[in-house]
């Protein structure tokens, strides 16, 4: 068991195994996103209330899912790094943060654009959007803190700790923002929570969500591989590897 975990944590081993996995995730991500896009944009029926503007859901919701999942994954990776000192986990957490911030931005942007036909305004302090905005700030904090330290080890541990503190706070923030929203804006129309979406509507959504997750895994694997090369550039196996390539 321990041997397995440590093998899993070995950058060299990970570099080899991820090379074989990576193409599959790229293909899966491309295929799922393509199918989901065509289905969602062209074939899914229009919403009876929102018409075709509802098709924004197929990018908004997957991005929002990913934005939250990436933060949680980042915190878990930070925990693994702090407890078992597995540097690979920290390398993954490093490359995840910007992607998570990008996804949060996508969710915010698509939500804001969606707001124009739905609410007639570019920005509404909707509970979901507000939570997303706070999540974006949390991402900025983690990225900025990592960049502020001169020692890489301290930077990693500080960022891991902040991610863990953040992930404990996310449910609290979400709950309090929901509560605050219902207090101030009772009974406004919510964009995404609706009862009983027909299958032709949610199937492409599901495909898009899966596609986004595959995309996240593929990008993280690829960038973690780069991060491994960067951090282990003085190790013999990396040197030999770069010689081989050249």
């Amino acid at each position, binding site marked *: 068991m321990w041997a397995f975990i440590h093998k899993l944590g070995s950058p060299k081993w990970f570099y080899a195994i991820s090379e074989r996995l990576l193409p599959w995730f790229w293909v899966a991500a491309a295929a799922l996103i393509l199918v989901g896009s065509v289905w969602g*944009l062209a074939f899914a029926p229009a919403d009876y209330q929102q018409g075709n503007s509802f098709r*924004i859901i197929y990018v908004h919701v997957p991005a929002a899912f990913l934005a939250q999942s990436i933060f949680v994954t980042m915190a878990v990776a930070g925990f693994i790094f702090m407890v078992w000192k597995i540097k690979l986990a920290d390398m993954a957490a490093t490359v995840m943060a910007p992607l998570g911030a990008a996804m949060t931005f996508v969710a915010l942007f*698509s939500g804001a654009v*969606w707001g124009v036909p739905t609410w007639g305004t570019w920005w509404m302090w909707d509970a979901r959007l507000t939570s997303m905005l706070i999540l974006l700030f949390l991402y900025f904090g983690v990225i900025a803190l990592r960049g502020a330290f001169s020692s890489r080890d301290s930077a990693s541990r500080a960022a891991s700790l902040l991610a863990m503190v953040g992930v404990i706070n996310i449910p609290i923030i979400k709950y309090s923002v929901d509560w605050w929203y219902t207090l101030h804006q009772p009974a406004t129309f919510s964009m995404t929570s609706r009862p009983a979406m027909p299958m032709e509507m949610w199937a492409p959504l599901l495909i898009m969500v899966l596609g986004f997750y595959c*995309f996240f895994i593929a990008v993280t694997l690829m960038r973690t591989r780069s991060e491994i*090369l960067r951090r282990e550039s003085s190790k013999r196996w990396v040197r030999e590897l*770069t010689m081989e390539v050249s």
Partner: protein
Amino acid sequence: MAFDSLSAFLAMGGHGAYVWAAWGVTGLLLVAVVLHARAERRVLLRDLRRRARRTQGYGAAETQVSHQETQVSHQEGHVHES
């Protein structure tokens, strides 16, 4: 198919601007993430290769700088106890 024609598809029932803006920005960002990851890897490999070649090349030719660099692996530590 939820649309009768291509123009209807592009118009999205009057909401075309919003739908295409949201999708467009999302698509651009995904592509940008992929391109960035690829560029990052390419630059990194180039730097690593250049560094590897430099240490190799100098070692064959002359100079002490590279001598130090390539020999390091044989000098185990620089610590002496007295």
